């Protein structure tokens, strides 16, 4: 039987939890991915941070639910996805960042988020050994945390399979099929599959997927490099985000995962646009100089491995989620801008509600914020 209630293109950070949520809502879902197993696109390149403390209300709402799902997963379903409530810390050394972070606090608190701007001593207690020279304080949000993207996507996948979702890997989706403007299914390297709804969760590939329909989904991949250290005894489970720009880079961030390994990533400036997964020799000198400057004891921590992944970017740093007006039944959930892992579970449930016609008032707030048809020229989200 090649007929389904919906077909999801992409078995990654968004596609897999969406399939799970749809199965829980009683829908029969098929997930297609050109790669050989779940999470082999950008999911496995993600470092694992999960926070609700964004500046954008739509992201706050979605990630708030994601945090609930990640943090209760093991209790509810048994698999350890290495969740840890390590918190997020944005240390501040300059007036600009202090002002910026303080601007968001009222909105963040309105959503009930546990976040405050604290003094340097408090920052130093969360980030032991942080360079005190010029430290003005910073925000701490202890309820945020991290989990393993690799384990989480596989845990979602296993449960989705148990609930009847069909996954097909090594399958290339060639075309979204339409009849009279309505989606009929997809044509793939493994044949045709029919469904009245197609969810585009193709991440960095979504622009190519939709191009054949004549619609331009404005998602542009940008390369970021990341790395992981040897495991050492726990000293900093908090995600530390340094927002300051430096020559060649904007912010960078790191935390120590449950194994004791420090995972880190940096945002290049100017952005490196394209599908380049190849490691560069400049990444480690660039990121290590900044990390060691912020936290001198890291000089003795040994880097184990590096990799490069893609941030599927939109013009304003906010995802594109919603029904396609020109192809009825085509639902886009793309342009996660490097936050697909933390948005995925909350977004999956929202998408399932959209498909079953059960959207809530909060969903409408989110969808307004993530609209495909919003004005994308307003500039980048401040806390991206």
């Amino acid at each position, binding site marked *: 039987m090649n007929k389904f209630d919906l077909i999801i293109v992409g078995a990654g950070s968004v596609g897999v939890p969406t399939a799970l949520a749809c199965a829980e809502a009683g829908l029969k879902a098929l997930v297609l991915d050109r790669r050989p197993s779940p999470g082999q696109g950008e999911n496995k390149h993600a470092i694992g941070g999960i926070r609700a403390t964004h500046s954008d209300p739509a992201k706050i709402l979605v990630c708030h639910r994601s945090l609930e799902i990640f943090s209760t997963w093991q209790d509810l379903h048994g698999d350890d996805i290495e969740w840890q409530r390590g918190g997020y810390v944005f240390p501040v050394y300059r007036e600009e960042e202090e002002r910026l972070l303080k601007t968001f606090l009222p909105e963040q608190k309105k959503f009930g988020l546990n976040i405050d701007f604290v003094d340097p001593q408090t920052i130093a207690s969360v980030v032991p050994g942080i*360079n005190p020279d010029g430290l003005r304080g910073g925000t701490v949000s202890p309820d945020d945390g991290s989990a393993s993207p690799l384990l989480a996507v596989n845990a979602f996948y296993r449960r989705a399979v148990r609930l009847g979702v069909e996954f097909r890997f090594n399958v290339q989706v060639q075309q979204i099929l339409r009849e009279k403007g309505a989606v009929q299914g997809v044509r793939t390297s493994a044949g045709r599959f029919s469904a009245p709804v197609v969810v585009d969760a193709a991440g960095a590939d979504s622009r190519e997927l939709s191009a054949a329909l004549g619609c331009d989904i404005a998602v542009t991949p940008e390369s970021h490099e990341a790395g992981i250290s040897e495991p050492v005894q726990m000293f900093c489970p908090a995600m530390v985000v340094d927002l300051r720009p430096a020559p060649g880079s904007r912010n960078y961030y790191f935390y120590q995962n449950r194994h004791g390994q420090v995972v880190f990533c940096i945002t290049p400036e100017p952005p490196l646009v394209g599908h380049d997964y190849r490691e560069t020799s400049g990444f480690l000198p660039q990121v290590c100089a900044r990390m060691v400057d912020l936290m001198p004891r890291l000089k003795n921590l040994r880097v184990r491995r590096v990799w490069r992944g893609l941030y599927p970017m939109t013009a304003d740093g906010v995802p594109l989620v919603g029904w396609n007006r020109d192809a009825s039944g085509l639902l886009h959930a793309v342009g996660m801008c490097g936050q697909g892992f933390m948005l995925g579970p909350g977004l999956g449930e929202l998408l399932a509600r959209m498909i079953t016609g059960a959207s809530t008032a909060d969903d409408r707030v989110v969808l307004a914020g993530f609209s495909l048809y919003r004005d994308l020229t307003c500039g980048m989200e401040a806390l991206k």
Partner: protein
Amino acid sequence: MSDQRITRHPVLEIPAREEVTFTFNGRPLRGVAGEMIASALIAAGIHIFGHHPRDHSPQGIFCANGQCSQCLVMADGLPVKACMTPLAAGMRVERIEGLPRIPEDDRPLPGAEIPVHEVPVLIIGAGPAGLTAAIELGKRGVETLLVDDKDRLGGKLVLQTHKFFGSVEDSYAGTRGFEIAERLAAEIEQLPSVAVWLGSTAVGVFSDRVVGIVRGNRYCRIRPQKLMVATGAREKMLSFPGNTLPGVYGAGAFQTLVNRDLVRSAERVLVVGGGNVGLIAAYHAVQAGIRVAALIEALPEVGGYRVHADKLTRLGVPIFTRHTIVAAHGQDHVVSATTARLDEKWRIVPGTEKTWEVDTVLVAVGLAEVNEFILKARDFGMQVFSAGDAQEIAEASAAMFTGRIEGLKIAASLGLAVGEIPEDWYRKAEVLKSRPGRIRQASPPPAQEGVFPVFHCIQEVPCNPCTSACPIGAIHTENDTITGLPYREEEKGCTGCLNCVAICPGLAITLVDYRKDPDHPLVTLPWEIRRETVEAGHTVAVTDREGALLGHYAVQRVRVKKEHPRTLLVQVRLPAELAKRAAGIQAPEPAIDPLEVYQQQPPPDEAVICRCERITAGEIRAAIRSGVRDMNQLKALTRTGMGACGSKTCRPLVWRIFQEEGIDLKEVTDRVDRPLFVEVPMGAFAGIDRRRDHE
């Protein structure tokens, strides 16, 4: 100093050692300045360097080659690989129990930019291939940077105490490996255009066509016009219960400890694998005064050169073909190991299990190319060359040839007029790579008078130094090919000079002299084990080629040729009927008997596949049975290959489990490899010089 140091060796000279004191877990110990921490610990009888964070199992030396991270210790507060970190006076060495701590050293230190340096040629690896390539380039004045992670030139040549095969004029046949390394190093020194960086590890080849190199504590970025990868090989591993116990390690690791660092790392060993590496390691063990309980080989015949196997048999080392290892046993260290016979389908024959009382299992089941740099460099469109084992696993003599060939190719690619690379070189390189050929029944010369050599060489291998050694040119190989068996041109006679006996790497030539006493001819037998056992007047056990005892005879005289001072030429008088059969002398110690028969085969699910993360065969099997067909997903789910070594050891083992599970390997996606090759402190990337930091 502890008695685990080798103080006498038949081949190696024991250098003067500068003693230093250091502490291990607070206990004061003495070691040798500049030796690797691992060797200092083993010399002090310490084999457990820490316990793994996942299963708290003991860890110790494994690769002794800087690749695996099993030997991690804390040295002066920092986690380091004990096999790659030199011992310094006053060093505080500690076991790592679980996860190491990074010191709370919060002083900000100034960093530095890491600029990119351009060089015409970069050679990674200064073993036989890298050295010969550098020599060819250096002779032509090509600016060449030669880097190696060890503290001296030569790569694995440094560990080789046996005489090399091949031919005298082309590949130093008859010369010992470490001496070849010294000669090549001396040649390099004469070449001003070759810069050598020792203690410098290549950690990655990057898409900006830069090779990242950690030199001491500094990170360097080198962009070569031509990259030569001569990184050699790494040892393959087996999965069996107990395989992570300290005391299970590679034959190469063993040679490093014993031959390079002169540490007696074992008392009694079981060698698994009858290729040249295993055979030679067993021989080196005997030379170092370590007993070899047995050597086992799964195939019906040993894979290495027959002369190497015969040398061992004559020393009384039992060789069991069609045997495998079942398990190693012990709490904190190997105390015994079980072997079993295999049937035609490689299944263990029940009831054939034998347990050997050994403290060490040397695994020598083959080598795998260290090829990650080549693959990345090709991906990134660099002009990359490779030679030696990194190109194709073969003998070091072949590596010296492929190094020369590739060196010339690089020179040519830089526009130098090097002329045609001699066709002969390619041919010789191929010949030297050739697998040992068929076994032929040797028939000794019929004569019962005069003096002549007897060749106990019955297998076609690329080797002919005896032909060069004969002063009257009487020794030839069949068809004059290097792989042909040797024979003597009888019309030319024999001077009885013993050169051929002394040079033969296989110790497979004897000299029989009937001139004084035709009924009791004087037979000269080569000997490289404990010298004191063969002094004149001593009685030695003389054996035939395969080790069968011919009788005990008194040593008449011990001679030495000055070109080969470490091969003793032991002369005994034998009855005429035995003289031509005599091929060697048995080792003075008897072999060990099997302890007892193990009835039960331990469940193989418990065998560790990924040593770094301590992931067992059972865990991997469960994942495969749940449908995993992507090594990347396997890694995500189980952490297999996620550890320090980056799947260098476990990858082939994982492939095998897929196969054993009946999975068509075409369905399985290989893992994506990423740098770094070894772990490097962030401070090095930040341009902080830790040495300066210590001052």
